[in-house]
């Protein structure tokens, strides 16, 4: 009997890990659908520091202390409780029960007790988050782009987390009952701090039922974790992993206001303005397209950003366009980019590289109206806890819209021709540029009199 469950465990465990690693490779491939943007591995110590501050240290989250503390409880709990996985996996593979208990002696109960306190914290936070989402209805969780799957995904994650740590507590509670009943195989460990309070729930339950409950919860817990491990890779919750590479590979020391140069346009204009060069036959061929029409035109870092987004909506909550009722939502830009990368990745798997479904990120996912509403104020960039840059994507798509598709609004076209002809965005004659300097009186004459 032991052998069968050991084999089953090994089978489930390796299947879970295998599927997860397959997904990781697919996501990596999807990220690399993006264009070269350098390796972003220069100054590694600075990069590790950035990662430590923003991903590990959650520096930006603490601008809002209440959700930050609740988030911290889940985060610490999630990481530390998973240490207990070592024992669960060892037990599962070796067909043992609580293999670490004899090794750790009296300290074992303290370890488990510590995990149980963390588990309680996780439940508390998850319930608070469910409350904020569904009862308080915090505004940023209920924007247009959150309808349907994104909201369900968010709630599912919280429910699954409660179920996972809840099963851990209940399993321990049943275990304590079996220990006190002296059931064979259930080594006495001493009481665990939280589950000993829950364990009276199981008093009067027969030993065989208790064993079934304890074993059932044990399997539920580990299979749940393996399921969740894979679920996360299809979910917005992937930020628990992606926050780390995303902050590591993020910009260092670049002013947020700087737009990336387009060397191919620079060269073309330089050639145009050079009277001899204009007729040279050495002009470089024009690029395949200007700006970004689809995910493949973005940089790999833009796509990594998209996979790091957990749809918290802090960006959208501070977006001046969104705050005044416009369609633009920086969060939706990131969600669309990720969704499109997923679609292209799946098409790649099914039909091989080069297949095209006739759709594009610009047009089929993100509309012109959204892109045009951006004031480039950088509020979304500043706000993102994991340093995602929606503005960079918006601006690359505007470049495509205006230069490639010639879809600029008429007023912008007038502005462009004013700049080109009058050297100013308005239709004033360039000869009036210095007219302001006529008649500036010197310091108050009355005072000097």
């Amino acid at each position, binding site marked *: 009997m032991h052998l069968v469950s050991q084999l089953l465990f090994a089978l489930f465990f390796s299947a879970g890990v295998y599927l997860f690693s397959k997904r990781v490779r697919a996501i990596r491939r999807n990220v690399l659908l993006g264009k070269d943007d350098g390796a972003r591995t220069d100054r590694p110590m600075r990069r590790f520091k950035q990662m430590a501050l923003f991903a590990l240290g959650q520096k930006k989250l603490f601008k809002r202390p209440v959700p930050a503390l609740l988030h911290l409880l889940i985060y610490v709990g999630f990481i530390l409780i998973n240490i207990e996985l070592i024992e669960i996996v060892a037990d599962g593979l070796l067909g043992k029960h609580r293999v670490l208990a004899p090794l750790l002696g009296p300290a074992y109960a303290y370890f488990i007790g510590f995990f149980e306190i963390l588990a309680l914290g996780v439940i508390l936070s998850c319930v608070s988050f469910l409350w904020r989402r569904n009862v308080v209805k915090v505004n940023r969780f209920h924007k247009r782009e959150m309808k349907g799957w994104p909201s369900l995904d968010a709630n599912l994650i919280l429910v699954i987390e409660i179920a996972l740590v809840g099963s851990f507590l209940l399993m321990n509670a049943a275990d304590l009952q079996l220990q006190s009943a002296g059931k064979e195989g259930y080594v006495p460990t001493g009481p665990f701090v939280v589950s000993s309070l829950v364990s009276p729930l199981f008093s009067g339950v027969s030993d065989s039922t208790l064993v079934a409950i304890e074993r059932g919860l044990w399997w539920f817990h580990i299979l749940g974790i393996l399921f969740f491990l894979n679920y996360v890779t299809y979910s917005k919750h992937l930020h628990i992993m992606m926050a780390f590479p995303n902050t590591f590979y993020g910009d260092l020391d670049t002013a947020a*206001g700087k737009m990336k140069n*387009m060397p191919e346009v620079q060269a073309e204009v330089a050639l145009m*303005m050079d009277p001899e060069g204009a007729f040279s036959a050495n002009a470089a061929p024009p690029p395949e397209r200007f700006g970004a029409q689809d995910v493949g035109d973005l940089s790999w870092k833009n796509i990594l950003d998209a996979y790091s987004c957990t749809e918290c909506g802090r960006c959208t909550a501070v977006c001046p366009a969104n705050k005044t009722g416009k369609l633009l939502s920086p969060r939706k830009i990131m969600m669309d980019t990720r969704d499109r990368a997923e679609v292209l990745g799946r098409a790649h798997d099914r039909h091989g590289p080069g297949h095209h479904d006739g759709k594009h990120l610009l047009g089929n996912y993100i509309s012109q109206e959204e892109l045009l*509403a951006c004031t480039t*104020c*950088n509020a979304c960039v500043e706000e993102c806890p994991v340093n995602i840059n929606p503005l960079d994507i918006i601006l690359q798509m505007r470049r495509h819209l*205006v230069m490639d598709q010639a879809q600029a609004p008429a007023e912008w076209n007038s502005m462009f021709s004013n700049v080109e002809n009058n050297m100013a965005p308005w239709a004033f004659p360039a000869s009036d540029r210095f007219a302001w300097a*006529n008649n500036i009186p010197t310091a108050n004459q009355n005072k000097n009199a």
Partner: protein
Amino acid sequence: MSSIQVPTMAQMAANGQTPDVLFWVGCAGSFDQRAQKITKAFVKILHHFGISYAVLGGEEMCTGDPARRAGNEMVFQMMAQQNIATLNGYGVKKIVTACPHCFNTLKNEYPDLGGVYEVLHHTQFLQQMIDTGRIQLREGGVFKGKKITFHDPCYLARANGEYQAPRALLERLDAELIEMENSRQRGMCCGAGGAQIFKESEKGDMEVHHKRADEALGTGAHIIAASCPFCTLMITDGIKHREKEAQVKVMDVAELIAQAEDL
């Protein structure tokens, strides 16, 4: 009544002179009537304190910022390359500008195209001049006891991390500085940037600049201080929208200083 003669780089070069700093006026500061007042106020300050400066005058062109942010890289490159040729031709080392959009483009985007200068926003420049004792402002004065709130321009604040210099200048006015709920890193845009000021806004519930003006009015301040000609225009319009222009003034930090100095 005598008037200030604003020196140009061309005149200076003809006389074999080089100013300490080039004042980059920008399109708004050159052409818009409201923004011209900011330009004049800053020139009065430069003149009053005997700072060696010059402007490009008719040789200045749009930096290309609105075209670039609207997606038209061609027009941006045309402007940028011509401006850089002019600036490098005069051997310009240091630039000060009262427009955060020009500031950002000159400082962060021209270097990629071969235009490398030390670029300061006028609030940073004035703060440096005060810190080094180059200029001394009067104590107290006309703004004593007035309530002033400061609106952070996106392209000075978040885009370039400068939150302190304009506030430090305002503190010298002896006024009561009140912060809006959304200020500094979380300051809300006036709605002009990203070439928005050059077109109608997209469909929504309200205009961005109306909302920002409401936030500023909510502080009960007598003066809304700005440090960007576009913010000044947008918020002034928002104040008019609420018919508060008689009670509340929108002024650039340079205008406030010029007024405090009775220039």
